[in-house]
């Protein structure tokens, strides 16, 4: 199969394991492209992509923009801080104004869950969800699973624990869907206040003891505490959080076997992870960043392949 079963990438929940495998094999090719002397292919040279970021982002935005440019697409950037949204324009109006300028694809990050899905029902362009509130962040989960596959050879049968603020994390939810579709076992670990009450209904294990979770897993995906999403105090202090759930070399040295550490970034050094661990040979954090560009190139290429050419 060489075509995705969906027209937009809104979330991992509605794509199939075959779609994920296709994205991975395409990303393998793009990973080779981004390591060549001339890191560009002309495939998307007649496509225009708008990056609509209604929420702040550095690395996701840069990663998408780089992926788009490596595919030779034309890129326009919109950020809500300096825009008509502040003048009261609705989401559909904002996007339709941009599409009237013949934009073919939209990469959108929005603070409201479901924003990307809503948009896909009202506009003609292809949409890639770059994060919708606390709902999904599909390209992050794809690059995380791809990095697991790169490190361990396969995702099937592997044990991955996601540590941290699961409650507010779209990365956690998308990762749970993606890893399970690929046959991995998933555990979440964090304080009870930061783990959604019925999360075990998704088929994940739950642990509140870091050392047990790390002994169980092959890979630990560590999340940042999302202070900007927290309306109440979920734990007494950051110091107490890092004493109980922070990853440091002492904890890693106590484990039965070595594990691999992942983090979607940005890292809060000294909170959820120490510098020593983040910079150690256990960590594949920078590989995740490189893989992110390849995965996003694959997603954009495969979705663009479905856009009909103007005759």
């Amino acid at each position: 199969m060489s075509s995705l079963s969906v027209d937009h990438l809104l979330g991992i929940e509605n794509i199939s394991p075959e779609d994920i495998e296709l994205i991975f094999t395409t990303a393998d090719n793009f990973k080779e492209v981004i390591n060549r002397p001339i890191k560009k292919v002309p495939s998307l040279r007649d496509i225009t992509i708008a990056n609509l970021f209604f929420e702040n982002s550095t690395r996701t935005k840069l990663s998408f923009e780089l992926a788009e440019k490596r595919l030779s697409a034309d890129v326009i950037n919109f950020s809500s801080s300096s825009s008509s949204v502040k003048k009261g324009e609705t989401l559909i109006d904002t996007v339709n104004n941009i599409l009237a300028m013949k934009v073919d694809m939209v990469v959108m990050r929005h603070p409201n869950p479901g924003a990307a899905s809503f948009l896909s029902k009202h506009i003609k362009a292809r949409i890639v969800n770059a994060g919708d509130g606390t709902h999904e962040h599909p390209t992050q989960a794809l690059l995380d699973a791809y990095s697991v596959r790169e490190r361990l050879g396969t995702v099937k049968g592997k044990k991955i624990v996601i540590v941290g603020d699961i409650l507010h994390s779209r990365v956690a939810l998308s990762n749970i869907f993606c890893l399970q579709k690929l046959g991995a076992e998933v555990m979440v670990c964090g304080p009870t206040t930061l783990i959604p009450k019925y999360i075990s209904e998704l088929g994940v294990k739950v642990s509140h003891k870091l050392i047990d979770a790390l002994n169980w897993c092959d890979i630990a995906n560590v999340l940042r505490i999302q202070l900007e999403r927290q309306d109440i105090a979920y734990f007494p202090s950051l110091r107490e959080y890092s004493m109980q759930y922070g990853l440091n070399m002492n904890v890693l040295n106590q484990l039965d076997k070595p594990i691999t550490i992942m983090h979607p970034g940005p890292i809060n050094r000294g909170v959820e992870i120490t510098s020593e661990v983040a910079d150690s040979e256990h960590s594949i954090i920078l590989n995740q960043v490189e893989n992110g560009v390849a995965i996003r190139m694959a997603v954009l290429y495969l979705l663009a392949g479905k856009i009909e050419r103007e005759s």
Partner: protein
Amino acid sequence: MQPVVILDNRQLELTVNRLCYELIENHDDFSKSVIIGLQPRGIFLANRIANVLTKKFRIDSLKTGKLDITFYRDDFRRKVNPLTASSTAIDFIIENKNVILIDDVLYTGRTIRAGLDAMLAFGRPARVELLVLIDRRFSRHLPVQPDYTGRTVDSISSERVSVEWKETEKKDQVLLYNTSKTDE
């Protein structure tokens, strides 16, 4: 309808040997030359030629690579089913080298055009030559001509040439199929 055998395994072996002699005539010990096979089917011919050059003609340290051109095709979004890319592996520098681009069948020339663009992403070669096993002459859409040709075949668009290898189809041979539905 049965396919016509253009080259059987003995003729294919002779043709590959003859192509190797021609290559050595121009490239001597290959110290300034590299071979790049085009994916997906040119790599088998490239490997076969590299094997003969290395084992029979004792060319040392021959550099061979494979190049996929899927992202450089001019029919992206124009075909009903998009193609899946194969791998590229060029682990050497092509800057200032003589590149021998190898494919099994030369038909419209569009694959070679894409191959030239893809190859330039790796550097600027001194010169590029094209080696093909089968040249379907008079079928070109672009001004592309081979420098080394195994066999020239006159064919029409309803025909298809298939190069089969021991490694993949269990037998070395080149076949001509008639794919039109209105025969007999």
